[in-house]
Structure formats: C-alpha cells, structure tokens
C-alpha cells in the first residue's frame, strides 16, 4: 500500500491521483452548484412566505428515498445523457437537494418570530426582513444543510466511476475489475481522506459565514442549541402549524 502511494507513476497522467481528485472535485462542484441553485432559493422563499411546509418535507423525505445508484443507472442508460460524468452530476444533485431544501426552509421558518415581528413593526419591507433578519439568523441551519449535502456528495461521487465517469471511484472500480486489492484499498483510503478533509473545510467555512453572535463558543462540528444537521433535516413536526404572528 505504501509502495503504491510511493510509486511516482501513480501521481502522474490522466489516471494519476491528482487528475482523479480533480475529476472528483469537478463532479462534486457541478452537482452541488446545481443543487444549491435549485434548492436554496426555493427553500428560503417558501420559508419566508410560510407556505407548502408539507410539500417541502415530503420532497425531502421522497428525495432521501430515491436510491442514488438506481437513478444513476437510469440516467446513464437514457440516450440523451448516456454513460458520462453528466449522469453522475444529475444523480448527485438530486441526492443533494433534500437536505439543502429542507434546511433552507426550516432555517428561515424557525427564525425567532419575535424578531421578524419587530422587524415588520419597525417598517421593514418583506425583502428587508428576509435580507436583514431571516437570512442572517438562519445561516447556521442553512449552512448545516449545505455541509451535510456536500459531504454526502463527495462520498457518493465514487459511484460516478460505475457509469464510466471519472473521479476517485475509478481506483476502486478498476481495482475490483482487475482483482487488485491494493488498488481498491488505496482508492477507498483516498476517498475517506478526501471526505474528512472536505468535512473539515466545510465546518470551517460554516463558522466563517455565521454571524459572530450566532457562532458556537468553540469550533464544533454541530451548531449550538440545534439538533445535528442530519436529524434536523428530517424534522417533519411543527412545520405545518403556523407560529403565532
């Protein structure tokens, strides 16, 4: 294993570690960009107007129930998309949408009603309430959703290799195909390290974009006073009863 990593040829060329890492990153970036573009504004807006809570949670739960692998195969076998990175990008985006959508919705929706009430009472327009009060106060929750999605996508992007795409999954798939355990385990190790690194970076980023007063006192993987993100975005209770205005 150490020898495998020590072999300079594994660090070069289009099948080398840096190239595969880059492919992996590109797949993840595109799918996250797609998911965020769709889910974040939608969740934020629905939370702001306090509508369709039921639908948002259903989409969240439904999205979680779709097997990413099956969707990937389905997309890859569909002519216009075919065997490519694109199939992986779309499947991963679908996979990333539920946590982002649900957390954006819940994050905005659960902002202290007293603060939004005071904001409206002082003459803020709906847009100002959203920009100056709801969004800043919900950064921890929304960021937790994006972070959860990112780490899941980075781990799951491994599957891209199964439909002829690139990424770190190639090492595992090729290793499996060639009955080469060293290659397979090297791939698994690379994926694990990447996930941990991405998780760390995402946590740091989340901390940076969170307004100072809302930051947990010490760097922590979970936002203070809130359930763990993975628990939060499953929340279905209390979404459909409007809080007192």
């Amino acid at each position, binding site marked *: 294993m150490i020898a495998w990593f020590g072999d300079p040829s594994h660090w070069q060329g289009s099948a080398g570690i840096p190239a595969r890492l880059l492919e992996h990153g590109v797949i993840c970036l595109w799918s996250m960009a797609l998911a965020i573009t769709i889910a974040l504004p939608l969740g934020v807006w629905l939370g702001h107007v306090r509508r369709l809570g039921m639908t948002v949670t259903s989409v969240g739960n439904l999205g979680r129930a779709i097997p990413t692998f099956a969707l990937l195969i389905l997309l890859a076998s569909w002519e216009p998309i075919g065997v490519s990175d694109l199939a992986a990008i779309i499947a991963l985006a679908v996979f990333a949408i539920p946590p982002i959508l649900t957390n954006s919705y819940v994050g905005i929706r659960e902002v*202290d009603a*007293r*603060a*939004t*009430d*005071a*904001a*409206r*009472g*002082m*003459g*803020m*327009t709906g847009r*100002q309430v959203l920009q*100056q*009060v709801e969004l*800043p*106060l919900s950064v921890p929750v929304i960021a937790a959703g994006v972070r959860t999605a990112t780490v899941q996508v980075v781990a799951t992007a491994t599957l891209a290799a199964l439909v002829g795409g690139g990424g770190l999954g190639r090492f595992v798939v090729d290793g499996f195909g060639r009955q080469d355990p060293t290659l397979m385990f090297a791939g698994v190790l690379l994926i694990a390290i990447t996930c941990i690194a991405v998780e760390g970076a995402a946590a740091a980023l989340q901390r940076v974009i969170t*307004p*100072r*007063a*809302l930051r947990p006192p010490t760097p922590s993987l979970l936002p203070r006073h809130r359930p763990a993100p993975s628990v939060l975005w499953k929340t279905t209770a209390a979404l459909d009863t409007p809080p007192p*205005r």
Partner: protein
Amino acid sequence: MITLDSVTKVYPDGTTAVQDLSLTIPAGDVAVLVGPSGCGKTTTMRMINRLVDPTSGRVIVAGRDTATVDPVQLRRSIGYVIQQVGLFGHQTVRRNVATVPILLGWRADRIRRRVDDLLDLVGLPPETYGDRYPHQLSGGQRQRVGVARALAIDPPILLMDEPFGAVDPIERARLQQEMRQLLIDGDTTVVLVTHDIDEAVRLGDRIAVMGPTGHLEQFASPLEVLGRPATPFVADFVGSDRLVRLLGVTAIDVRRLQPLHPDDGSAPQLPMAATLREVLAAILSSDSGRVRIGDAGVLTMAGVRETVQAAIAGA
C-alpha cells in the same frame, strides 16, 4: 392624533379579541391600555400600525384612514416596542437601536450620536453595552434596548407594549421618570400597555380600561378612573386600594392647609411640590399627626382625605 372608530377584531379561529372599540387619543397625549391578560390590548395596539387589520371599523392616524396608507411607510413613523422585545440576535446593541435610522438612511455619525444618547437614556452606558449582543444582556436590559430602538427616530407616535415588565422596580421608577420627562410636554402621542396600575397612573394622561371580552369599560383621566370607576369591573380591576394609589398623583391643595401652630416647630416638613403620598407617609411617622408644608401651613389626616375627595369630585 389616533382615532379608533368602532373597531372590532375577530381572528380567523373565531376569537373576538377586540369588540366595537372607539377612542380618540389627542396628539401629544399618553394613553395607557390596561386590562386582564388576553383582553385585546396587544391586538388594539397592533391595529394602529397595521400589523393586524381590523375586521370592521376604522383606524385613523394623523388624519388618514390607515387602511389607505402603505403599511411600511406608516410603521416607519411609529415607534413600536413589542411585548416580547424581539431584538435581532445577530446584531450588536448599537446596531439594533440603529435599525430605523438605517432604514431611513441617516448619516453614520448622526446615527452613532443618537444611538449612544439613547443608550445613556435607558441606563445602558454605550461604552459598556453598545457592542454586546442581545444574548449577553439580562432580560431587563434587553427590554431597555427595545425601548431605545423604538425611540430612535423620535417618532411622532410611540406604541409600547409592556416596555418595562422585566425591569427591576428601582430602574423601572427611573425609566418612568425619564419617560415622563420625555413625554410630558413633548408632542409624541403614546399608547402604552401595562399591567401595573401605578405605572398607568404615573404616566398616563388617560387610561383605557378594557374588559375581559375586548371592549372598553372606561377611558378617562387617572383621577377619574381611580376616583370614579365607571363600572363594577373597573372598580374591581383598579382595586379596593384605588384611592391610596391616587395619593401618589395628587398635589397638595393650599386650601386644605391649617394655620401653623406654635407647637409645629418639631413637626416633619415637606415642600409644596410633595405628593399626598409623601405627606401621608410623614403624617404616619409624626407624633402630632401634623406635617408642615413649607411655611404655608400644616396638613393633617383630615386634610389629606379632604384633598383626595375634592380632587375626585372636581374630576
């Protein structure tokens, strides 16, 4: 001037919060809303700045039916202290207080000066508290930031929903004093909700007593509400000690003074500006039951009683 004209509010769930309420608050006056919990005080207040729209009736602010006014513009001219404070947790105390001036586009140095003055006014020195966040304040301190925030642009109308509920009695008395100074001859029209009858009596030009079913029982001066409650409900609500409460806001009447007596040299002495409450306290602790009022004369228990009864009769 604020006029509520036969205003009724029925919430979508069928709760009648306010029933056929009519009252007029002249410009510059302080009207205090009192009544049992759930009688519709907050709802009444929120119909003035259109956070709640009346089911029927009209609300007229500065001569215009609020139903025809853009709610955002209306609210920017009305300071509002919400019952639950509602500070913005992600912003410092200074930034919270600066909310409306920023919305109105004031210059930074003007905002800074105004905000620091206000924090001093509410007893939170800006150098200590200005850069704190709401979670670093006590409940009473947060409430005072809420009051400062509502006062920020010195609005012509001020709505305050139990603004000092969580403040300790000493600081509360100081704030009431400050508010009095601020409001007494200012041209700010104020609607204040409180559960504290003494606060209502101290600050209000008029007191509106609301009954349990959301309608107005009496709307009159503190003297009248305490001295001549309009309904049994009001009498019960202001309490059997209502005339004792009146002492704190009744002035000494020279016509009730008795001439000085040679033995009065050792009697306690109070200035003419004292209230009857202070006079009574002095009478209770004096051996002769007599209190010298400056050099003008002497008040006794009988004089206090006569003053109160005359005040009620004259109200």
